[in-house]
């Protein structure tokens, strides 16, 4: 299957979201201000539906969910956690105040492997309920080493539970366009909006990019003092660029952490970075549908060339690098 299989977080039940500046984190409008979409308390208590699909029993689904949540719980410098409560006969997307993960057969969504919904408190901006569905119209597998022609459930659960915690999509991947659509070549995040091919199990572990995002939402006690940030602005002909993908690369450790310019002024913030020297690379958002990242794709500038910042950006422990200005030029 060559078509892009989307991993969605688009089914927001209360209100539209906008990407907050920096990493792939959602924001919600509360009293005219944008606040991060996140849970007010931990652990997140979740239910799993008592219905399986061919090759995957409810217990298998519960096991995959437990492993995925454990992976997030083990993410560096994050205090996010989750706890299984019970099996349930309720369906995902029922507004019952419960976090429910389960299969739904949606053959009409022929490009969607799974999706996450949110119920958000309009006053505080906190997530009240979040449900995840996995599309039973696709073949699934929970085999340790994957199965040819079947999608690895744990990988997809990991992606969707990342949304459940409040992470948006990351653009840290490369794709190619073929006759059958867009295909992922490689990615260094589990939050890339297009899934790896069926049979692949390499997206079962959060990458530094994912951990940085989770740490920003749910920092543990040491996160603030141990990590630093890079902030700055991407401009083209002096005007801010919306939707530029800015990636911080630590050449010593190989760590890659991405962020997006999320407003017209072209500003970005990349947090959760270990102290060190970073190379900044800026690219247009052209490796996935822009709709996967922004509600208003028409305003996103994808017409500029890849650029690098002229100097290493130095991130101190517990602080921020000086503001960076990167000028890009038209393709």
């Amino acid at each position: 299957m060559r078509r892009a299989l989307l991993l969605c977080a688009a089914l927001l039940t209360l209100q539209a979201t906008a990407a907050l500046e920096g990493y792939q984190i959602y924001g919600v409008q509360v009293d005219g201000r944008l606040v991060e979409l996140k849970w007010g308390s931990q652990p997140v208590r979740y239910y799993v539906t008592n219905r399986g699909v061919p090759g995957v029993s409810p217990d298998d689904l519960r096991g995959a969910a437990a492993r995925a949540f454990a992976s997030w719980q083990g993410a560096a410098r994050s205090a996010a956690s989750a706890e299984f409560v019970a099996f349930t006969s309720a369906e995902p997307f029922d507004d019952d105040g419960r976090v429910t993960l389960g299969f739904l057969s949606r053959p009409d969504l022929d490009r969607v492997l799974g999706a996450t919904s949110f119920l958000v408190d309009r006053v505080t901006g906190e997530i009240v309920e979040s449900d995840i569905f996995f599309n039973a119209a696709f073949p699934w597998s929970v085999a340790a080493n994957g199965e040819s022609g079947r999608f690895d459930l744990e990988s997809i659960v990991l992606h969707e539970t990342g949304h459940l915690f409040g992470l948006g999509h990351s653009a840290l991947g490369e794709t190619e366009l073929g006759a059958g659509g867009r295909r992922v070549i490689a990615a260094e995040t589990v939050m890339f909006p297009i899934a790896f091919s069926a049979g692949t199990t390499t997206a079962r572990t959060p990458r530094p990019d994912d951990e940085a995002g989770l740490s920003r939402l749910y920092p543990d006690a040491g996160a603030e003092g141990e990590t630093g940030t890079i902030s700055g602005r991407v401009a083209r002909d002096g005007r801010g660029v919306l939707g530029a993908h800015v990636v911080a690369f630590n050449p010593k450790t190989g760590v890659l952490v991405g962020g997006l310019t999320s407003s017209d002024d072209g500003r970005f913030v990349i947090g959760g970075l270990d102290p060190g020297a970073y190379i900044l690379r800026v690219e247009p958002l052209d490796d996935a549908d822009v709709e996967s990242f922004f509600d208003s794709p028409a305003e996103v500038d994808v017409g500029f060339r890849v650029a690098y910042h002229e100097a290493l950006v130095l991130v101190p422990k517990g602080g921020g690098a000086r503001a960076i200005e990167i000028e890009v030029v038209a393709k």
Partner: protein
Amino acid sequence: MRPFSPVHVAACIVAGVALSAGVAAAQTKPARRPGQKPAPQKVEPLPSRPAVIPVSREPGRPGSFEIAAAAHWLGAGNAGTGTATLTPNQAGGAGQGFTWFRANGEYQPSAGVRATFAYNLSRTLSAEAGFTYSASRIRYIVSDDPELSSGFTSPGQRLSEYFVDGAVVVRLKRLAFAHGRGRPFALAGGGYLRQLHAGRALVETGQVYYAGGGVKYLLSPWGRGLVRAFGLRLDARACVRSGGFGFSDGATISPAASAGIVAAF
């Protein structure tokens, strides 16, 4: 050229006194008549400089020490390569990563100052402690980026480097020249590297190792007081830096040289 030493200086002073005494003695002789040839006088040869410098006053003797200050030059060096790698979309394991781009770090030539303190353990062996400050620069070069085929080279940025090191210095007595004034040596050592970005935003530490050789040339026959000798010192080394702002755990090898003055005590 003759070997000198504080003893040599003392000998000159003694000779001068003897010469003055001789002149004074001549003035006490009867005045010479006009046209009369001066009577031949027996001139005693001046005391020659001693062939062997007493060990107790020779620079480099065991238990003595030296201090040197020099201008320092550190050559360019490869600071390693970092590869931005993405996890490939392929079944059956992670396989080989997908190379997104590579960044090669490069230390550019730099100048600074170096000071050393050496304690002579024996006539051939010294222990030396050194401190070096160098105003360095680092830049990076991006390659293999499929979306930027022209690559990218950063203009470079300033870096302050500090070495605190210790070395063993072996005096190569067989290669001495200019009657012992020229004193070749070999040295090897290592120590602590501290690099500070010009913006003082970040400090990186590492190690520095080096080996090389040089020569001290003693110029001034100072013998009195604390300073026993004074001269020039040149050395050249292969300098290995690891850690610091380097892009990999590998070592950066650079040529290094220093030239300055040395005082022996």
